[in-house]
């Protein structure tokens, strides 16, 4: 095949499409892997766990997040668009009445924050919140 200008454009745009498709699920699977590490691939229910987070975060360096997970022994937070998706995990002792906590986290960009809770009976609950980030918090 002769390398004409038209061919070059066709090839390069094809490559760009492949590259963009290749990059997107890579992030998602990182978070999924991290979640599977905790749950062991178990089915996750929904409902008992709630996250409170802003819809739009001006500054990705400090995004306030709080969660409420009655009946949970452990809650782990993940950010699926961060270079390392794990954020923090909370274990609750006997003296913790509400199994809720608030903290501030870093987000690299607009993404989902996922919370996974391990309940007292060993089952897992999951919920997520989408947060739009104006300025990412990963330095550079």
């Amino acid at each position, binding site marked *: 095949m002769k390398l004409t200008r038209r061919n070059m454009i066709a090839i390069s745009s094809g490559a760009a499409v492949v590259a963009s498709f290749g990059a997107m699920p890579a992030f998602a699977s990182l978070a999924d892997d991290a979640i599977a590490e905790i749950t062991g691939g178990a089915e996750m229910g929904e409902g008992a766990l709630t996250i409170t987070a802003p819809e739009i975060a001006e500054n990705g360096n400090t995004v306030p997040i709080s969660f409420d997970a009655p009946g949970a022994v452990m809650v782990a937070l993940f950010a699926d668009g961060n270079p390392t998706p794990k954020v923090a995990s909370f*274990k609750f002792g006997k*003296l*913790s009445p509400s199994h809720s906590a608030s903290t501030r986290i870093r987000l690299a960009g607009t993404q989902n924050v996922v919370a996974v809770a391990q309940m007292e009976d060993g089952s897992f609950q999951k919920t997520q919140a989408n947060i739009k980030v104006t300025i990412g918090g*990963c330095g550079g």
Partner: protein
Amino acid sequence: MAKGVKPRVKVPKTASAGETITIKTLISHKMESGQRKDSDGNAIPRSIINRFTADFNGENVIDVTLEPAVSTNPYFQFDSVVPESGDFKFTWYDDDGSVYEETKSIKVG
């Protein structure tokens, strides 16, 4: 030991027996994520607080594992039941091996 690390904790001074109180903790720490680069393009090594625990009279209330995605000056707010008078003990574990501690007494009256 990282410089300028100062824990700050807010616990009510008194409570009634069995009451649920809210505790706020903050520790000044730069939480260097290991993702950033300096002006020469070299990665700045990770230096974070990787664990935080709160105990009341030896009984665990909360045990948090922190990753680099937790913001500078890690802040936590959580609840605890106060069954009797005693001490809350808060402990932060640094990547470099330092341990920062803070104790607050509460009276049940």
